[in-house]
């Protein structure tokens, strides 16, 4: 048993002893957890006893920002997919909630709405284009 790795974790003033029992089994403060970890570009993904936690890396997290502040006038792709149709042109005036584009992802259509009234300042995508989640598509001034 002595061959197993162990250490102490320091966070928020607490010191928590742990032992790594197996590559996917850890004992923390006397309790055992099955765990898996993925380290992606934007986040650490931790699976721990049936729960998954997404821990954004450092300060970037532009995506969560975009999702959290849709009223900013920037319309971003809420999912990866294809731009089916753009329903506005640069310079158009739009009202709040007006449909500005239609996206398709995994065989489901969804409409993108203007987060607020304003003028279409820029269109960063075109019909038929495949976009990633969080990609900036249209800006409303």
């Amino acid at each position, binding site marked *: 048993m002595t061959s197993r*790795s162990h250490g102490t*974790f*320091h966070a928020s003033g607490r010191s928590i002893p742990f032992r790594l029992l197996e590559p996917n089994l850890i004992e923390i403060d006397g309790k055992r957890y099955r765990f898996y970890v993925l380290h992606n570009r934007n986040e650490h993904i931790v699976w721990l006893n*049936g*729960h998954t*936690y997404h821990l954004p890396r450092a300060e970037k997290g532009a995506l969560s920002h975009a999702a959290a502040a849709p009223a900013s006038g920037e319309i971003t792709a*809420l999912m990866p997919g294809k731009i089916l149709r753009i329903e506005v042109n640069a310079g158009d005036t739009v009202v709040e909630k007006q449909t500005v584009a239609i996206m398709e992802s995994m*065989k*489901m*259509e969804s409409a993108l709405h203007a987060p607020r009234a304003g003028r279409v300042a820029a269109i960063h995508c075109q019909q038929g284009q495949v976009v990633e989640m969080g990609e900036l598509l249209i800006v409303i001034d």
Partner: protein
Amino acid sequence: MIRKVLIANRGEIAIRIGHTLREMEIETVAVFTDPDEHSLHVPAADAACHIESYLDAREIVRAAKEYGADAIHPGYGFLSESPSLSEECEKAGIIFIGPRPDTIRSMGDKLESKRVMQAAGVPVVPTWDGNPPASAYPVLVKAVGGGGGKGMRLVEKAEDLAEAMASASREASKAFNDSRVFVEKYIRRPRHIEFQILGDSHGNHIHVFERECSIQRRHQKIIEETPSTAMTLKLREEMGAAAVAAAKAVDYRGAGTVEFILDPIGSFYFLEMNTRLQVEHPVTEMTTGLDLVREQVLIAEGQRLLYRQADLHPVGHSMECRIYAEVPEENFRPSTGTIEIFEAPAGPGVRLDSGVGKNSVVSYHFDPLLAKLIVWASSREAAIDRMKRALADFVLLGVRNNIEFLHRVISDPEFSSGKIDTGFLDRHPELFTVSTDVPVEALLVASLGGEKTVSGAHIPDVWTSGFWRNS
């Protein structure tokens, strides 16, 4: 005798159909489009043929000819409910494992199908071509050409009808190559109950009991079970008789499903008939012991059903959870990526029909259904316990998914009580809210950095700063 079958589908259902065909010593031919080149249904078959589209009936029949297949199994979705594949098969002298083209055509037209059922004495939901009376609201806009939640919109007020119909029409056109939509009375707090039916080519028709499919998101089922907690012996007899009457009305051949709406006072209405294998068919298999794909093949070979209604006795309780690549907490947005960790649950009474595994790439091209987790147990309570355990054991990382959400749903006391209807999820917004607190144990584990040997000294400073406590 059928010797070689082309499976005109992909994902979990293509693999599941292959399991039965191989047990029947029938050779299998897979088809795949470019994005599916590395998908698991391809190596699972004895041969595979590259195609341009899963929706081109002629191309698929050509592939069947080229590979010497004497039959085609359409699976669900894609061409399964298009009469074109059935027709092209007839022309080419290939057996279509499904109903005759005219059955598919009349049942695929959701308006025509209701006329047929009404004439056969099956109760149907009030329906309009486009302009329901004001008193009829709320109404549902639905696609004439298909189901599965595609091309469907709930409309509360008359002024929203036009946009809903236009949007549904576009979606329907894409999904079913048929842009027609219609309007149907929306029944409040309905249950969605369907009956599995089987018919042979000798005029025998039976039902194989009900499936409760009321737990839906965006009009798409996510949890199905049998028996239904709404069912009494009398109601099952009445609805079963209606399902068989529906099957007889079109002299149904093959495996199909009659969908009903059941309202809170026990009235039921024919909704539509699905002329194909259903996604949720496994719960029926688990409780009756029938292998529905085997039944489909035997019927397509012209064999008679080997049992009568009275010979079928369902046993125990079965439940299915659909594992989707989607984020329920973010309005069910689809998710894509590569599955980097895939640890499947196992044990007594657990069945996993999966289309993916470790290293599978989930792209935006297809439906987000990754796998179906099905359990069987002697009672509903034990089935829920088993499903909870299996979901808790299921690790799927790399693509966001609904596993934890499903666990929360089946852990809900109202769900356990069995008092469910299609509005269940809307009534439980708390199921969509997850605490953003990250426990210190998760931070610790993230800090391990995937190294097998760690010590306190290896932990970077950031992990001691408490930074993550604020995220």
